[in-house]
Every structure is written in C-alpha cells, then in structure tokens.
C-alpha cells in the first residue's frame, strides 16, 4: 500500500488514512460528493452531452487560475507535488465540465422560473422585531401594553429584551426566511400583516417568551439568491431521482 505521509519514521498508508476518515465521520460525506459527481457525469453522457477539447481547456485554465497557478510550469510542479498524473488531472477537469453542462441543462431559465412559481412562498422573507422576556405573565403584560401603544416596541426591546444580540436595534431581525423559525411561530409570522404583534411564544423548554412584531413580509422575488437556491434544489431533486437508478454500496 502506498504511503501517503511520513511522520519521522512512521509511515501513514492510504489504508490508514481512509480508516481515519471513517473514524472522524468525514468519509461518508466525501464519498457522497464523489457519488454525486460520478452519477451526474454518467447521466450527462447518457443524455448525449458531449465535451469538446476547448471546453476542457477553458475549464482547466479557469481551475488553474482559481488556485493560483498561472504558468504551465507551476501547474506541472503542482501536479507532481500532489502525486497525480496529467491524465488524472484531465479526467478530473473533463468530469467537471460534464457536471457543469449537465447542471446547466437542468437549470434553464424556464425550469428555474417554473420551480419558483410552484414554490414561491418558500422564498418569502419577513422582517421582524422581537422581545424575549422571562415569564408568561410578563410577556402578556408587554403585549397588553403594546396593544395600546405599539410604538413603544423598540423602546421595550432596548430596555427589557433578554436577546442581547438584537436588543440594541429594537429587536430587529431582517430577512427571516422560512425554515428558520419554529413551526408555530413561522406559521403565524408568515401569515400576519405588517405591524401585527404576535405571541407570546415559548422559547424552547425554558420559561422564556418571545413577542414578535412583524414589520414587513416580502413576497418572494426571483432574484439572484433565489435563483441559486432553486438551481441547487432542482439539481438535488434530479440527482435523488438518478440515484434511484443506480445501485450504490459502500
């Protein structure tokens, strides 16, 4: 077995390294990444996607630039240093191109837009302010006071909130996405109108209660970050389908 590393006289073999990865729970993560790449390339080839030399060249150049190898000599040195052959490098880059082209065919403008339309509410965001206090009675009293004078919210947050991170900004938490708040709170927040005061919601198992004021609900827009997330989701869903077609064991 080839030796990967030597510490003084102790040789660490690839076998030992793999065991180490397995012990530290990183093995399966990396393996999954590998499987995903392989399956994607496989599917791309099956679909008849081709890769031209120019594309590989372009990708290789991009890759080199990305890791700071500007000259051919440096690249050769790098290849030698990490102990791979130029062929290995080419295969790696080619697969990468396949994957990228596959993803591109999946996440076309229309596909992304369609996905967005079907799942738009998932990308809604809300701006909220919150106050965290101890004890339900106390929370109820704050809500009663805020019912009468909602404009005091910021002041109460500054003075009484136990959330040190937000108290100075009047409890302000901008751009809360779905999936972050507890289900109960999320259901209420995303179905509220601006300036609604909600709560008190119990925070975890403790005697802490949260009062929320919704400042704005932003309906989802198909912006750059939404696009990225949708592309990712489309690729993930597609990949999960593909994975069912293969038998993968490790």
């Amino acid at each position: 077995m080839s030796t990967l590393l030597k510490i003084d006289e102790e040789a660490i073999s690839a076998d030992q390294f793999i065991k180490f990865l397995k012990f530290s729970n990183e093995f399966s993560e990396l393996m999954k990444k590998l499987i995903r790449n392989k399956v994607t390339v496989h599917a791309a080839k099956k679909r008849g996607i081709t890769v031209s030399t120019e594309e590989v060249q372009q990708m290789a150049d991009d890759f080199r630039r990305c890791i700071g190898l500007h000259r051919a000599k440096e690249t050769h040195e790098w290849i030698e240093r990490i102990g791979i052959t130029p062929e290995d490098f080419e295969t790696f880059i080619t697969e990468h191109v396949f994957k990228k082209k596959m993803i591109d065919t999946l996440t076309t403008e229309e596909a992304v837009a369609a996905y967005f339309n079907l799942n738009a509410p998932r990308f809604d965001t809300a701006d909220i302010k919150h106050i965290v206090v101890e004890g339900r009675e106390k929370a109820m009293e704050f809500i009663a006071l805020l019912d009468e004078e909602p404009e005091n919210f910021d002041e109460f947050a500054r003075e009484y909130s136990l959330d040190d991170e937000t108290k100075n900004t009047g409890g302000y938490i901008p751009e809360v996405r779905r999936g972050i708040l507890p289900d109960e709170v999320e259901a209420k927040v995303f179905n509220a109108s601006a300036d609604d005061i909600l709560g008190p919601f119990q925070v975890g198992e403790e005697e802490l209660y949260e009062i929320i004021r919704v400042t704005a609900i932003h309906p989802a827009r198909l912006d750059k970050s939404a696009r990225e997330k949708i592309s990712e989701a489309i690729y993930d869903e597609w990949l999960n389908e593909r994975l069912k077609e293969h038998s993968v064991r490790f």
Partner: protein
Amino acid sequence: MRTSSIIKFLESVEVFSSFNPNELKYLAIHAQSSQYDFGTAILKAGDPGQGLCLVKSGKVRLFTESEGKEKSFGIRGPGDTFNEISALKETLTEYSVRSSAKTEILFFSREVIMDLLNRNETARHFMTRYVALKVTGGFVTHFFNLRSKVSRTEIQSIIEELGVRRVQAGQEILSQDSAEDRSLYIVRHGEINIVREEEGTTYPLKVLGSGEIFGEKACLKYSVQQASAIAKTDAVLMVVPQKTVHFIIKNNPDIRNVLEDRIAFTEKEIERHRKLAEGRKKGFLFDTRSKSKSGEQIIKRFPFVEQAEQTDCGAACLAMICKHYDIPMTLGKLREMANVTTDGATMDSLARVGESLGFVTKGVKCTYNTLLGFDLPFIAHWEGYHYIVVYGVSKNHVWVADPAVGFKKMSLSAFEKGWTGNCLLFSATDKLAEIAVEQSPWLRFAGYLRPFKKVLLDLFFAALIIQILGLAPPLIIQNILDRVVVHQSPDLLNVMILGLAITMIFSHLTGFLSVYLSNFMIRKLDFNMISHFYKYVLSLPISFFAKRKTGDIIARFHENNTIRRFMTEGSISTVLNTLMIFTYFTVMFIYNVKLTLILLAFVPPIVLLTLAATPKYKDYARRTFYAGADAESMLVETLGSAEIVKGMGVERAMRLKWEKKYSKTLDLRYRAEMFTALVGIFSGVFKAGTHLTLLWVGTRMVLTQELSIGQLMAFNALIGSVMAPIMGMVGIWDELQEALVSMERLGDVLELEPEQKPENISSRVILPDLKGDIRFEDVYFRYGDKTTPYILKNINLEIKAGSTVAVVGRSGSGKSTFANLLMGFYKPADGKIHVDDYDINMLDMEYYRRQIGYVMQTNSLFSGTVSENIAIGDQNPDPRRITEVAKLADAHGFISNLPLGYEQMVGERGTGLSGGQIQRICIARALYHNPGLLIFDEATSALDSESENHIQMSMREILRKRTAVIIAHRLSTIMNADRILVLYKGTIVEQGTHQELFEKGGMYFQLIQKQMGGIEN
C-alpha cells in the same frame, strides 16, 4: 414613620375620604403592603376576594382571559382601587390583576374595613355607593367599550340611571309583543331563556348566560318585544334604560352594529324555528286511573301529550316517553329533531331521536305474544300512518296513549286490527351510564343492572332455596346412619329417602328456574351493554378511529362480557356465599365445636394463597389481553388488505408475523393456565389436608363416642358444602381482579369524550336545510398538540351558497384536511368556521353530515345490493331516485349490464367492480340524499377519461342548487369552478377563476402546465 406616610397617602384617596384621622390611622396600621415587579400576577379571576386593594404606587392592569386571549379592562394607577366589592362581601374575583410597572399595593382585609364601617354610618353609606359605582361603572364602561369615549362624569350619570334586577327562576322579565318595557337587559349572573310563542307553540330561541343582552330590538327600534325572556335560574340583571342606551350609542356607534347583529340573529333563529316547527304545544295529562292487576303490566301515572296536527304524532309519542323518563325536552325540540323529512316522522327518525336522547332503541316487527315481554312504554306503528305509545299490556288488553285521542284501553282484537306489527323499543340504560361518566366505573356498569332489580332478587331467592335445601341431605344421612342403621328401622328409612327425594327434586326445579331467569337477564344485559358500547364507540370523534387499531377496538367489545359475568353471577353469589358460610358454620358449630375450629384453622392459608397469587393473575390477564388484541389487529389488517398481501406475494411473511404474535398470546395464556394449575395444586393439597385431618380427628372422636358415626358423616358432607362458598368467595376475588382489568380497558374508551355530548343536545343547532354558506375566519389547524406542525394556516375564505369552489395544490398541501374540517371531523386549533352563519361547533353533526355528499378518493361499499348501497340509510329506498342519481354519476350504464342490475350483490370493497365503478356508485350514493353541500375529495381520480367526460357533462346538473367543494387534480374538473383556491403548505396562495389565475401565471399556471406536459417534477 412608615405609618404616617401611609396615613398621608390614605388621606388623598377617594375611597377613604369619609373616614376621620383616627380611622385612617387604624387602616394604616392594618394595611398589608406588597411589592410587585413588572408583569407579576396579583389576583386571578375566580379566586375568592378577601378585601380591598389599593394601588399606592405604580400601576396595575385588570383583565379577563378566555381561550388564551386576554381582554384588558384598563389600567389602575396610584389612589385607584380594585376588587372593591370584596371589601363588603365575599365574592369571587371577576377579573385577573397584574402589575404593569413596579407596583406597591396596600391590602385591607374585609374584617378591618367592616369593623370601621360598622361604627361609622356615613362612611358605610359612602363606601357602599363607591363600590357600586366602581363595580357597575367598570362593567358598563367595559361592556359598551366606552373607555376614553365618555368622561368620568358622564359614566357616573349613566350609572345613576342603571338598575339592578334580581329575578327568580321561572319569572317572566319581558313578554313578547309588549312594548311596556324598552330597556336593555344585561345578564350579570344566572341564565335566561329567550322563547317565542307563535300560534300557540312556544319554542326556545336561546339560553343567555352572563354578559349577554336581551330586549335589544324594542330598545333600539322602538318596536314591540321580539320574544319573551324568562329566567331559567335565579338571575341578576342589569337594566339599562332606553334613553341611556341611546346616549351610549351616540358616544360609541359600534354598539348599534352589535345590537343590530343580535336583532338579525334572533330574527333568523325565529325563521329557522318557524321552518322546523309547526303546530301547537299542549300540556301534559296523566293517566291516574289505570292500576295494574295481576297478569297486567301498566305504568302508573303515564303522561299524555297531545299532537297538534297529523304529522306530529311521532314527536308527541317521543314527548310522552321523555316525560315518563323525566328527560327535560320540549315538544318543539323533539318535533324539530323527528320531523326532518317533509312527510313527518318515520320509524327510523324516531329511533334516531331516541338514540340522541340517550336511549338504546330497537325497532322490531313481531307478534302480540312477543310484545308481552317488552319493556314499557314503547311506540307502536298504527294503521300505517300513525304512532301511539303502549304503556300497559296484559293477555287480553292493551293500554295506549294515542296522541290524537288520549288514553285508551283496548281489547286485544281491536289493537291487533290497527297495529302494523312494528314497534320501537326504548331502553334507558344509556342515560344512566351517561350520568355515571364522572362517577366510578362501578356505578356506570351497575346502572345496567338497575332495571333487573326484581330478576336479581328472584335469582337470589332461588339460590338461597337451593343452598338451604343443600343442608337437608347431610341431616338425613346422619339420621339414616344413626337411627335407621343402628336401630334397624326400615320404616324410618322409607320416610328419610322420600324426604331426600323431595328435597332433591325441589332443588333441581329451583335450579332450572334460576338458570331460566339468569339467561333471560343475561340476554337483555348483553344486548344493552354491547349495543350501548357500539353506539358509544361510533359517537367518538374520527381521530379515535385514526389512532386505534380495529382489532384493538373489537377486543374491547368482548370485555363487556367479563364485566357482565362478574356483575350478575358475582353479585348474587357474593351475597349468597357470605350468608351460606355463616349458616353452615353455625350448623357445624352445633354439631361439633372442635372439628369446626380445626376446619377454620385451615381456611386462612387457602385464602392467603389465593390472595398472594392475585397480582400475578391480574398481570397475566392484562398481558394476555394486549397480546391478543395485537394478534387480532394484525389478523383484521391482513384480511382487510388480502389483495395487497397476495399481490405482493407476502402471504408467508405476513403469516409468520401473525404467528409470532399469536404464539405470544398462546404462550402467555399457557403460562397463565400453568400458574392457575400450580396454585390449584397447592390449594388442593390444603383441602385434602383439611379432609384427612378432620377425618382422623373425627373418627377418633367417634371411637371415644364423643360423636356418632352419623354426625361424622354429616359433618363430612357439610365440609364439602362449606368449602364451595369459601372457595367461591375467594374466586370472586379473582373475578373481581379480572373485571377490574376489563373496566380499565373499557374505561379508556368510555372516558373519551364523544364528538357531541348528549347533555348538550338542547343547545345544538339543527339545520333544516343546509344551504352551504361557508366562512372560514383565521383558521389554523394541526392534528396534534403544540409540538406538531400546522397543516392549515390562516385560512380566510367565504363560499357563497350554491357556488362551486375547487381546491388545488400539490400533495401534502392540506387539501384533504380542508375537507375534513369542512365535514366537522376536526375542530380548528385557532379561528372559526361558520356554516350558514352558525359556528360549526354548534351544529348537530349527525344532521349536518347527513346533508353533505362526501366522496373520498378511496371509497368502499358495504355488503349488500347496489341499490342498497346507493340508498344507504334510507329504509324505504326510492328506485326512481336511485336510477336518477346513478345516471348522474354515469353509473347507470354499467350497473344495468351487471347480471342482476341494481340487485347485484357487492361485497365489502365492491368485489368484482373496478375502482372507477366503485367510485361512481359512491358518487351516486352521495347524491341520493340530495345534499346541500357536496365535497369531492379526488372523487374522480379513479375514473377513466371517458367516464370522467360523462360525469363532466352531468356536472352542471350535479352542482345545480348546491354548494360544492371539489378537490381535484384534473384540470377538466376544476376549470368550470366559480373559484379556485390554490393551497401551498396549508396556506391559500392564490384564488380566482381559472381565467384569472391562468393569466396571472403563478403557481396555478405552473400546476396546470405541469399537468398538461405530463411531467412530474
């Protein structure tokens, strides 16, 4: 120092302004001061108030809480008081109080204040006025929402005008159509019935509780009273003069809307009752003349209710039965419940009403002879169109109460001429059981025995006779041995043998009689218990069936038998055995003290052994039950989905799984039996030991001539007889344990709340004809408790009667849950659902659901013919209607092609029919009753496109004049809907017509695109 500062403060406070300095000092000394941080509870509503509270510094909030929502009564600051009334008398606090800043409260106990008031008349006067002002003022301000709308002096002047009226139960406060009193009444305590009388019929409109108002129409519109108000309980009312009401309205115009809404509501109620109820109500008469002679069974003082018109006879009969059982139910309400069909009551509707009143009803067709054994009173069907109550029977006569005529004693032949042979029996056991819900399970089941008191007593006497006769043989044997054998007297022998023969014959005869009686009783008991249980199980909410396994529920049905056995056999034998043990031991003591004492010495070990074994017995019984129920569930499941099992070829696997469970049951049972046998050996050894010892001692006594041989034999025979009751007593202990386990198991079903409680029946709203006006207000729903996610969120929606609404969305978006809520299967976690402007929780679910046509994605048929399935629940199916709805559902074609057409038998899941065919029969079934609201939950999913096209064509006819909610995937089904709702993860994200949504190009557009493209994901 502290006291003087308090005195200073007290001087400035209004409430104490009539006290002199000495008195203030006294107060200051006795004041209890407490400090509260922000947001601390000071008083809880409903706690007894102990005295007056005064805010010294800071501020407090007064509020009430209901359903987790608080309603603020405002803030009290320094110098203000709260809980004033408890300074004068002990009452429960009406509101909760919480500090709204760092606060100091001074508390003065009632004793301290009363002490001063008793000595100072002026102060007393002032204080009483102050308290009245505060209490009423607070209430009025809050009630009419006048805070910050009128000044303090104006409030004061309003309060000056207010009156308080105390009324006694039954007193009339307002009378219908009178215009004398146009004040507005607010109920402070107690309950008020609002009733309206029309053409002689009185019907209840509403029962008002604390905080509700009446007299609003006369007050607001200067008209006559809409309805009479009669105190149901003793009540305290606040009277607001008309002038004051108008002053209040001027300051808070919202009040006018509130009042007008109430007027509209009452008018609607009157309209509904008019529709439901016609005719007049007559008072009750009692039959006080008929007395039962031998061979006759007559109910004494049977009440009579006269019918108002022909269609009323059924309701009048029910009213008589209710009156007889002391069930408070008005004729009007009964009529409303029974005459749901246009042509009056049917046997079926009467039975149903009986059931909802808490009876177990049974409709039977029988001959006169069978009738003699029935429980009185019962309803008999008369001449095909009339109903009468039979309350007395004998061999030759029948006593009936005919709602059209009155009491009648008829000869048998006259009765048989009119009687159709149908009757409806009522057993009242259920009512008893229902009262016993909060009581112990023992009382609950003992309730079933109550009607059999007489039979039980007879049984007891029979058993007593048998036991006493059992004493004779030992005595006779002793005499035979001691006199006949010793004195050589054959004559005496003949007499003795004859005596023995007679006792034996008697004892066997009595034995037969008691078996006969107990069988008779057991038959009735079993019927009552099981059918009540069945009814109870079906009255449980749908969530019960979603959670429990079928086998588990079935197993619980068997438990009824264990309890019944214990109750009948157990109860008699316990009493009897105790008695017998005493008699036998007395007799034995007379025979020989020494021998008896030896016998007694052996009893405790046997008893102890059994008692020691009990916990283990109980444990086995419990484990066997659960294991058995588990195996049964598995069996039911496997058989129920036989095609899946066979289709997947997993017969073996399923059988192995079942075998494992079943063998576990058998194993447990085997171990339980072995344990019983083991205990049996021990007690057998003890018993044998007893016998041997007694024989040894006895024989020695005979040898020493302390005892005659006959006495020894008799004593030996007596031992045999006395051991039976002793073991019986111990056995009862076992049975008791078993019965306890059974009760536990039944208890966890019977303690669940039925979907609609029988005691609420009079407040339930029965919709005579469902229009299908549906409104969802801020509805949130989840299946479990707080930890489970919401399935529906913030649903706000209005469905107009007669419109068609389609619900679309991807799977898991909450569409079926939406249908479930609409069906009333579940209650919203938050928010309200209104149907025809009534809160859905107020509706009588059975009547409501019967007017809904509900078709699910997966449907099943019941065993029976096709037409029986379509007209399910209808006792007199209308073949024309069946064909009509079958045509609408595009089922007529294939049904006609079945070998027997509409009379073709179909099985549990519609054996031999395709999924699409079953679905079409189910659509026809839903349409048969001409429902006001149609809910199709993917109802056309199993149809092929041709059949779907056919249904589409008749859709216009299907949807005509009724509200429809259609949950569907197929575009064709939803395109024509008046409105389409798009659900996404429980929220309505888009709504509009097909055209609108399509043009919008949002989620709906995408869903449609996907369907047309036919690509999933």
